[in-house]
């Protein structure tokens, strides 16, 4: 079986600035990979490439064996049409640091929108799927609230439900707790932990080292656009190899 995510030689620049300098990463079903690294090391950019929110110049990304974003034919690489990419994006779900809920829709409608428009579920099916997931993140009773009526932690949980309801092969989390008050962080992390124990394949950027250690099957340390060190959490946190990682871990506490 092909891996859920297979990134090979990924290169990405913003103008002159090369932000990702050749990333290779494989994830099997059920893997939970934490990306750590200092600010500006390229973690967010990597996630955004996987979700095709950024174009990239070199390398390939495959999800469940299917190359996304681009097509390589006789050595010619061309970007897929926008409509095709939109369909591919639904294979990955993404939760953002700033939640990005649609402020003019209730929690329920936030979740059903993609189900109806992208997955072509009927309204009733969409509602029942959405309610199941809102239940899972503990937001069922608040389903008719608008984002402005929810606390940050509650909004983030709805955002996660919105992504997961699409039944993605892979979930991407980008610092989903760092816009939250410490008290709200716990609610959200509990949800992520829950998903991990369910066997959801997840790639997450986090600043919560303790959490990364608890939940991941693999931790990846990024530095200056490269994967500097990776391994199981016990190794990364317990026996870091490189000086950089040692310094980073000392700092992050």
């Amino acid at each position, binding site marked *: 079986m092909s891996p859920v995510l297979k990134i090979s030689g990924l290169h990405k620049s913003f103008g002159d600035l090369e932000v990702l300098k050749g990333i290779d990463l494989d994830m099997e079903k059920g893997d939970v990979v934490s990306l750590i690294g200092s600010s500006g090391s390229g973690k967010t950019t990597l996630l955004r490439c996987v*979700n095709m*929110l950024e174009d990239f110049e070199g390398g390939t990304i495959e999800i469940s064996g299917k190359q996304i974003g681009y097509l390589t034919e006789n050595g010619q690489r061309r970007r897929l049409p*926008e409509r095709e990419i939109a369909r591919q994006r639904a294979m990955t779900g993404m939760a*953002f640091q700033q939640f990005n809920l*649609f402020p003019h829709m209730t929690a329920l409608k936030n979740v059903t*929108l993609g189900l109806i428009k992208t997955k072509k579920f009927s309204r009733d099916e969409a509602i029942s799927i959405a309610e199941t997931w809102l239940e899972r993140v503990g937001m069922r009773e608040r389903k008719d609230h608008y984002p402005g009526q929810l606390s940050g932690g509650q909004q983030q949980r709805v955002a996660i439900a919105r*992504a997961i309801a699409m039944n993605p092969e892979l979930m991407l989390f980008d610092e989903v707790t760092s816009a939250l008050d410490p008290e709200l962080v716990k609610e959200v992390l509990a949800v992520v932990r829950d998903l991990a124990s369910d066997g959801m394949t997840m790639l997450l950027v986090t600043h919560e080292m303790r959490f990364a250690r608890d939940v991941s099957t693999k931790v990846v340390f990024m530095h200056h656009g490269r994967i500097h060190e990776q391994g199981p959490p016990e190794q990364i946190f317990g026996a870091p190899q490189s000086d950089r990682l040692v310094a980073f871990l000392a700092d992050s506490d």
Partner: protein
Amino acid sequence: MNFTQMLTSIWNARMSLLAGLENTLLISLTAIALGSILGIGVGLVLTYGGMISRFFVRIYTDFLRGTPVFVLILAAYYMLSVFGWNLSAFQAGVLALTLFCSSHVGEIVRGALNAIPRGQTEAAKSIGLTFSQTFLSVLLPQALRQMLPTWVNTATEIVKASTLLSIIGVTELLLATQQIISRTYLSLELYLFVGVIYFVLNFLIEQAGRALERRVAIP
């Protein structure tokens, strides 16, 4: 001021005034509706279009916004007939006002779309929505909320600009009134009278805008 005489003359001319009012309503509402739809397209191109299309649409809006409305009306009526497109005075006037309205709405839409955080588009993309779906379900409803007050400004301007169709002979409300004035010389009284009618029209639009604003307010 001579109010009894004014009331008599208004009563005598009620049919032509009503016909004028009907024309005014028809012209304004058509132009506002069509112009707003077109204007959304214009705003879209201004915000998301490529370099070239943006350049041309920018010229389009700046040109239309900058031209006096009655010149637009004259142009729609006469210039188009040079190209063998013979519109009636009414059609030409509505066309001119529609284009004018679209240029204003285009700018308003651009402003409103720019104010929506980028994260909204990205979130919509990440659940697999296409651009048109994103626009219709996510961006437009939010833009609408910000646009409404300035859009009402534009709508009232269109109502007022509809008076200029009299130049090419469309008997709208103002011309109908001026015809009475030319007969009775009650200019102040009748201008005041017609001012009140326009006020009521625009006031209704304003209130409709406010009501809509409340309805679509985000909790």
